[in-house]
């Protein structure tokens, strides 16, 4: 990936993604944190486009920004009396150390390993191929994923179901 457009795009999106992610962890206000999380997701979508993964990029926007960020917002709004802060618990230092350790290890591995032969071109339109794979080779995982989603929906509804029969009427 040497053409100038891609290189520039990568650096911009990487800066946005990592910067916003650090912001997510650092800002004091939980809502600001969620707003920055959305920026992180958008930056990742940009990174996917530089990786010529157009389908995944669009799905990233659709699911992460359009659905998961909203779920997180709901989690905040539905708990009105809980704190809206973004503080750390007493685990601050160990967590920081562990995170630094993990990041260091992974970066070291990334540079240390020989990843073998490299493809030079990106993909041309991935949606059809992904669809074929999903319904052909990965049909079983696909079905399992649907069952998982269904059970997650049912589980979520069961968890927050109102207790007591008097509210059942609603």
């Amino acid at each position, binding site marked *: 990936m040497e053409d100038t457009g891609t290189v520039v795009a990568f650096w911009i999106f990487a800066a946005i993604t990592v910067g916003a992610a650090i912001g997510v*962890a650092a800002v004091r206000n*939980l809502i600001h944190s969620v707003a920055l999380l959305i920026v992180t997701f958008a930056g990742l979508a940009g990174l996917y486009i530089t990786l010529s993964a157009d389908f995944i990029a669009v799905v*990233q926007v659709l*699911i992460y920004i359009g659905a998961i960020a909203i779920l997180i917002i709901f989690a905040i709004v539905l708990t009105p009396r809980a704190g809206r802060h973004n503080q750390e618990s007493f685990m601050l230092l160990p967590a920081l150390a*562990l995170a630094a350790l993990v*990041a260091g290890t992974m970066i070291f591995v990334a540079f240390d390993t020989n990843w073998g032969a490299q493809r030079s071109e990106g993909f041309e339109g991935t949606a059809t191929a992904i669809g074929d794979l999903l319904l052909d080779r990965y049909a079983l995982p696909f079905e399992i994923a649907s069952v*998982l989603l269904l059970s*997650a929906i049912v589980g979520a509804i069961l968890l927050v179901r109102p207790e007591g029969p008097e509210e059942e009427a609603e």
Partner: protein
Amino acid sequence: MDSIELEHFLVVGALLFAVGLYMALAKKNFVGVLIGIELMFNAANLTFISFSRFVESAEPLSGHVFVVFVITVAAAEAAVALALAVLLYRLRDTIDVDRMDLLKW
């Protein structure tokens, strides 16, 4: 700086993962923990897509398919986590994970 290779993406992924890990471990607020987990999912996705793009293989798009599954699982996880947060809040009036120390509901 003039060429972008696999390692660049892996570093971004590693940083994202580290931030997510830090948040999941250190945040007091349940929603903060949830955000951290989502960040880790995203870091993994980015790594999948990077390998899929750069590493020569017979079926390069398998990485993409895996990401689709990860996103599915993440959506399911977010839904259940939201339900848990609401339930916790209803029972304990707080969603600070620090205060969930009774080992019972």
